[in-house]
């Protein structure tokens, strides 16, 4: 799997588009370069051929010119022959012809094939009386001139008198009778000089000069320079007057090719370089794309990872707009917690989902985060769910994205702590309850020890005295004293028992009670005292005043407060007691107001409901009534508040649960 993959990868790498493009562009540039080079080569070749042709033409012209001159000389010479065949004034005329004409070197008159007259004689004496028509090597060319009746240039050949030369023989006919030749000799070097070959060719070209052998018909070359005449690099001209052929050829026929070789090499290099560049250039985007793909892949992976974390997170996550507080995005848990759909949530800002009492704190923190004072905060707050339920969450807000001016987006994490919070509240409640209980128990144990100890210490003291008693009468008095302690102790134990009963009874019957009914019963019980005190009782209890309470406690509480009101009445005025019921914030409040002696709350407020705390001299005041009442109210989940003024009156308010 991996191998094939890597193999494919290598294949792809080698034959990737960029590489193919590089190869093709290399080939293209090669082709283009070589095509242009080839064109150039053709042009250069043509130009060279053209040049060669021009040179040859010039050479031809020059040679023709020279031959023409020679012909003229030969003709002029022939005119020295009179009709009888006699040669006249050769010695006078010939020097003029030869010396004034650089084209020719020697002139001859050859009557009947025998060289009779030569100028200049010097250096040519050997040829006098030489019969050319008898000489095999010369006879054919000489005859050709006779046959054609035209001047014919023979040679070049080795002159008898030495040196290579060509001879133009003009056949002379007198009355249609061949007389002989008028001949002009041009030395070969002179002919070449006249043709301008050397001058024209310079060092660049080489020449060949050939003649078709009259005898054999073969082409005979006279110059050594050109060994192999390649026709494609030569230009020849045929001079019919002598059956001569001039060749011109480039000295170095491969010169152009050699000139082009470095260029060809450069083109190759250049094309390769261009191909490489193109391949690289094309590779760049491919590489970039590969990188992009890789990075994109990584990004997608990372995005996927975070998306999964975001969606699967066990806590609610939301993105918020920092300024508006609008919810931009939420995860599953967040929606689960609030009960809204993702779409619904985007229409909310965080404040709309927050419990009114917690908005301020949340808002303040958001302001602080927006001002840059803090970067994150965590609070516990209540949220309002779609179904109206209130849940507790731990909210952590931190900056997610910032621009130059400040935070742009925030991430809010909410953790459901409702249960935790509820159990916390329950725990607090339980703790408070236990603490209250503990306080009461402590108080109670203190009361018990204190009150029982007062009796026990009395007993101890009496017994000590008893032991020290000296007579029966005294002893008798101690026993009587002891019995008084017994009674008091009994009373104390009874009181304590009552308190214990209240505090220990946690599962008392609690039912809705009509306060007015119980008030009626209580007032009936107190009928005697009311009449005795001539007290005025006013009742303002609503008929519907229904409180959840234990019936016995209700009787006890009402009896206690009303009897207190009667007991601590001011003797100087008619007792007036107002009993009213009001509803405050959904809870009933029973108010018992009197115009009695009042209580100095500054001095006794703290001890008002304490056991055995009394604030009068009255022997009836044992400091137990309010203590028990308070305990009963506590047991029923209610509370008592008091307002009082000495000599004005007291108002007790019973707040029912």
């Amino acid at each position: 799997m991996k191998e094939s993959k890597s193999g494919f990868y290598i294949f792809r790498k080698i034959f990737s588009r960029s590489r193919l493009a590089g190869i093709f562009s290399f080939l293209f540039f090669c082709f283009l370069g070589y095509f242009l080079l080839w064109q150039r080569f053709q042009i250069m070749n043509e130009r060279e051929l053209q040049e060669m042709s021009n040179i040859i033409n010039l050479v031809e012209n020059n040679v023709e010119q020279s031959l023409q001159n020679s012909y003229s000389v030969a003709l002029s010479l022939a005119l020295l022959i009179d009709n009888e065949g006699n040669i006249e004034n050769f010695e006078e005329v010939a020097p003029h012809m030869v010396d004034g004409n650089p084209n020719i070197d020697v002139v001859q008159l050859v009557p009947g094939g025998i060289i009779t007259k030569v100028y200049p004689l010097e250096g040519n004496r050997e040829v006098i009386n030489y019969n050319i028509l008898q000489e095999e090597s010369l006879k054919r060319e000489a005859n050709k001139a006779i046959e054609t009746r035209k001047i014919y240039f023979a040679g070049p050949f080795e002159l008898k008198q030495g040196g290579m030369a060509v001879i133009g023989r003009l056949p002379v006919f007198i009355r249609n009778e061949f007389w002989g030749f008028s001949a002009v000799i041009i030395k070969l070097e002179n002919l070449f000089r006249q043709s301008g070959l050397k001058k024209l060719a310079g060092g660049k070209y080489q020449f060949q000069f050939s003649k078709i052998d009259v005898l054999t018909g073969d082409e005979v070359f006279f110059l050594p320079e050109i060994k192999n005449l390649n026709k494609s690099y030569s230009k020849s001209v045929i001079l019919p007057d002598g059956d001569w052929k001039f060749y011109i050829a480039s000295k170095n026929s491969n010169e152009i090719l050699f000139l082009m070789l470095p260029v060809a090499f450069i083109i190759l290099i250049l094309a390769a370089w261009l191909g490489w560049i193109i391949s690289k250039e094309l590779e760049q985007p491919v590489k970039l794309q590969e990188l992009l793909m890789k990075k994109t892949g990584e990004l997608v992976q990372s995005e996927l990872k975070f998306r999964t974390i975001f969606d699967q997170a066990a806590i609610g996550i939301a993105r918020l707009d920092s300024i508006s507080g609008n919810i931009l995005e939420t995860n599953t848990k967040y929606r689960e917690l609030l009960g809204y759909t993702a779409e619904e949530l985007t229409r909310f800002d965080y404040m709309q989902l927050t419990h009114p009492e917690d908005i301020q704190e949340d808002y303040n923190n958001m302001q602080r985060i927006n001002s840059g004072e803090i970067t994150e905060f965590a609070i516990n707050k209540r949220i309002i769910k779609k179904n109206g339920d209130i849940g507790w969450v731990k909210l952590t807000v931190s900056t997610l994205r910032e621009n130059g001016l400040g935070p742009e987006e925030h991430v809010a994490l909410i953790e459901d702590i409702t249960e935790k919070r509820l159990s916390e509240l329950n725990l607090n409640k339980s703790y408070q309850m236990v603490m209250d209980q503990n306080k009461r128990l402590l108080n109670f144990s203190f009361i018990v020890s204190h009150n029982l100890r007062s009796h026990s210490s009395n007993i101890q003291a009496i017994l000590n005295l008893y032991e020290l008693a000296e007579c029966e009468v005294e002893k008798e008095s101690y026993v009587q004293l002891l019995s008084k302690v017994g009674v008091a102790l009994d009373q104390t134990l009874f009181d304590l028992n009552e308190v214990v009963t209240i505090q220990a009874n946690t599962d008392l019957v609690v039912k809705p009670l009509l306060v007015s009914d119980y008030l009626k019963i209580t007032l009936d019980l107190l009928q005697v005292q009311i009449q005795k005190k001539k007290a005025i009782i006013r009742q303002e209890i609503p008929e519907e005043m229904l409180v959840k309470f234990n019936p016995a406690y209700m009787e006890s509480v009402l009896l206690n407060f009303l009897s207190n009101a009667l007991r601590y009445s001011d003797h100087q005025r008619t007792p007036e007691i107002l009993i009213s019921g009001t509803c405050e914030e959904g809870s009933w409040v029973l108010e018992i107001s009197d115009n009695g002696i009042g209580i100095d709350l500054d001095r006794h407020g703290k001890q008002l409901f304490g056991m055995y705390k009394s604030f009068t001299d009255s022997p009836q005041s044992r400091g137990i009534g309010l203590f028990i009442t308070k305990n009963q109210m506590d047991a029923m989940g209610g509370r008592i508040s008091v307002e009082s003024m000495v000599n004005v009156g007291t108002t007790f308010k019973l707040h029912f649960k």
Partner: protein
Amino acid sequence: MNKEICVIDDDYIYQLIIEKIIRRAAIFVKSTAYRNAGHAFQRFKDPEFPLPHLILLDINMPLMDGWEFIAKLSSCRPNLRNETKIYIVSSSIATADKLKAASFKEISGFLSKPVSVQKLKEIGGKI
């Protein structure tokens, strides 16, 4: 020496007992008793009134408790400390009460009930 003693306590039975103990101790020529600290204060607040040599004072009493009595009396009679010896006599065995008693320079001691004849003789002897 004519030693006088005063008992301020709201416990009626204790009053009866302490009266017998005082008589048994036989070192005091005069004994007074108050069941209401307020009444005692009314009598003692006049600086001209000679205070008894020894006062046995209860703490827990209705209307005016022992602490209040000392505070009020002390404000009326700045020299209270030298005029009389005040002993707290209480059935309380609470440490808090003992500590509080120690914080009053006017209080000479703290006695837990019951007070024995012996103890009374001992205290009375110091005067």
